[in-house]
């Protein structure tokens, strides 16, 4: 009898345990009574400048909460967090604050709502055409640009003037001037980003187009990496590091910040980087303050200079609960007023055309006039769904050539072959879907 009772008690305990374990699953779900919420994840440094934009939007939409989630500093990590959330069809983020290179991937994965019908043609016409086009994939709009970036060449104006030299127009000028003005290892001629990562692709992309070459034509999927222009372009970068180098040996480990620090310490004549450097290098405590100028990357005779197009924009998650409000937020976040709030204190280049005629913005950052001119040279990286794979293939072989483990021509030949194989599988996959 006592045993039966004991067993029953144990059974009760077991049942209670199981019920307790299941309890969290029955927790009340957020009901309609909770205030509607719009969430977006931002780089930590940008969040303070988005605050006024978010608060203004909340004032116009009574009872709405705009949640500006502070993500990690690294672009890759934020992309992963967004990807993990969207893969799980999780409604946490209503908006995706995205880099230009995410557009094709996120759109092809079906994670974003197409936006072309949500905006009037004249609204979209207000943006810089390059920045707007970078938000399109497969003929539809998935991302509205907020700010834009272009690669450019910074010069030490004081050193050039003292030597009576002009800013370099061609790669030959750059090499000659760098060699004339440098005294390594204290001062180097030309700094750029040579670590195996996206920044290397950006730097090479500019040199490639400056030599009249191309990477992948996104329309025809023709790969241009094994053409003579590409070999000449990579040959130039390799030459920067070899016999009588104009770039430090550490270039193959540099990302933007390593090269920016060296340049800002006054230890280089030329630097390839993004617009953010200007504000930092002109700060009160910068050794090179007031001794800089900037211009487009060089080119060879017969080709045009090129500036890799970067930048950030907003897309609407396919799994958010408030798509209509999210679209409204994008409209508000890309108003001239919001562009002022974001770009005046930070020095970011606004995506709206009329921002470059705005007296307040231009007074806050006179460098914007130069950036507007540089946009004439902006070239977008190919909009491929598997862009990341194409970029990794290129990075790997460029890096091998820079490290000296492969000859430029051979490295590019391999990169071209692997890129074709990757695109080929994509093409046949598409054909398979039609059948």
């Amino acid at each position, binding site marked *: 009898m006592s045993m039966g009772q004991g067993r029953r008690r144990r059974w009760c305990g077991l049942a209670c345990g199981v019920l307790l374990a299941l309890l969290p699953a029955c927790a009340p779900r957020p009901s309609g009574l909770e205030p509607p919420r719009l969430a977006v994840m931002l780089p930590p440094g940008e969040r303070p400048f988005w605050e006024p934009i978010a608060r203004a939007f909340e004032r116009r939409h009574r009872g709405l909460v705009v949640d500006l989630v502070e993500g990690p500093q690294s672009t890759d990590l934020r992309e992963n967090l967004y990807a993990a959330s969207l893969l799980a069809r999780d409604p946490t983020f209503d908006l995706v604050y995205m880099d230009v290179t995410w557009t094709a991937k996120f759109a092809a994965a079906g994670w974003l709502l197409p936006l072309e019908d949500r905006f009037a043609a004249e609204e979209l016409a207000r943006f810089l055409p390059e920045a707007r086009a970078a938000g399109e994939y497969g003929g539809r709009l998935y991302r509205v640009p907020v700010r834009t970036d272009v690669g450019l060449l910074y010069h030490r104006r004081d050193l050039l003037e003292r030597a009576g030299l002009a800013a370099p127009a061609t790669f030959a000028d750059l090499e000659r001037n760098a060699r004339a003005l440098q005294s390594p290892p204290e001062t180097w001629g030309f700094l750029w980003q040579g*670590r195996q990562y996206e920044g290397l692709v950006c730097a090479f992309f500019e040199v490639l187009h400056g030599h009249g070459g191309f990477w992948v034509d996104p329309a025809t999927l023709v790969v241009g990496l094994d053409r003579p222009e590409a070999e000449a372009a990579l040959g130039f970068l390799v030459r920067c590091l070899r016999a009588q180098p104009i770039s430090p040996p550490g270039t193959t480990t540099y990302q933007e910040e390593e090269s920016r620090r060296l340049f800002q310490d006054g230890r280089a004549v030329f630097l390839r980087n993004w617009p953010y450097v200007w504000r930092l290098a002109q700060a009160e405590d910068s050794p090179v303050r007031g001794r800089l100028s900037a211009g487009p990357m060089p080119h060879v005779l017969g080709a045009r200079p090129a500036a890799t197009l970067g930048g950030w924009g907003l897309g609407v998650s396919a799994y958010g609960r408030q798509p209509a409000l999210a679209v409204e937020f994008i409209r508000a976040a890309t108003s001239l007023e919001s562009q002022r709030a974001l770009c005046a204190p930070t020095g970011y280049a606004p995506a709206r055309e009329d921002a470059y005629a705005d007296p307040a913005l231009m007074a806050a950052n006179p460098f914007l006039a130069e950036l507007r001119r540089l946009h004439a040279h902006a070239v977008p990286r190919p909009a491929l769904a598997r862009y990341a794979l194409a970029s990794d293939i290129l990075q790997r072989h460029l890096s091998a050539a820079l490290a000296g483990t492969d000859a430029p021509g051979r490295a590019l030949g391999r990169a071209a072959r692997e890129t074709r194989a990757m695109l080929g599988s994509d093409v046949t996959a598409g054909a398979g879907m039609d059948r």
Partner: protein
Amino acid sequence: MSGAGLTRERTLLLFPALLLLALVVAVPILRVVQLGFHRVELDGGIALHWAGLEPYARLWQDGRWWGALRNTAVFTGASVALELVLGVAVALLLHERFRGRGLARALVMVPWALPTAIMALAWAWIFNDAFGVLNDLLGRLGLVRGPVAWLGSPGTAMLALVVADVWKTTPFVALIVLAGLQGIPEPVLEAARVDGLSAAQRFRRVLLPLLGPSLLVAVAFRAVQAYGAFDLPYVMTGGGPGGATETVSLYAYRNYFRYLDFGYGSAVAVQGALLAALLAAALMGLAGRRGRVRA
């Protein structure tokens, strides 16, 4: 009868724990194995198509996979070998009686307690060509002329990864070996001393054989862990230069998150895990045989 009842009850009581384990371990593993037989297409959504063994066939022709496998093997072999030698040395030191031994033992564990990503960042700056401490020291000593870009060429980048890993995980090996040393009865060593064996002979003939099991445990743990290295190369080199430090884990991760190729990424992960399991089984088999031989 009551015994049978108890067993059934025991099984029932184990059930919640087994269910939890199944949910968090078995289900994801099975899902990865299943995904490994698929081809992924990105076309207005992520579409999975059954592809059988095709992803595995692709592995055999993928130079990048072979490169990653080679890098992982070099990294694992070099770092585990060095950690073993240094770990035993450190353990022998810490086994001696000296003033402040407790403090020394605690301090030695500090690298092991640091988050890998953070210490990797610190090492990346140490190896930096222009601002790095290493070049500064070597330059002052007159050992190098001009800064060396340690992370900039394939050989030195791998060396840098191994150094960072050895710095971080030698304490782990030392800890296991120290525990092994403490398990060796003092009379055994005393007898060896009485028999007139020199210190080197005592180490080779007595200590090392008795330490065998703990050494094998340390090697097995470390080999499998080093084989899965991800955070160190991710932070220090990003797999570069020229893919010379890309590990199997890094490659699997990139297939998943960067290319959204869950099929191929899973094939890489499954193949990688199978090879790691083989490695562990071989080491454990070795441990078992040695144990039996001695018994």
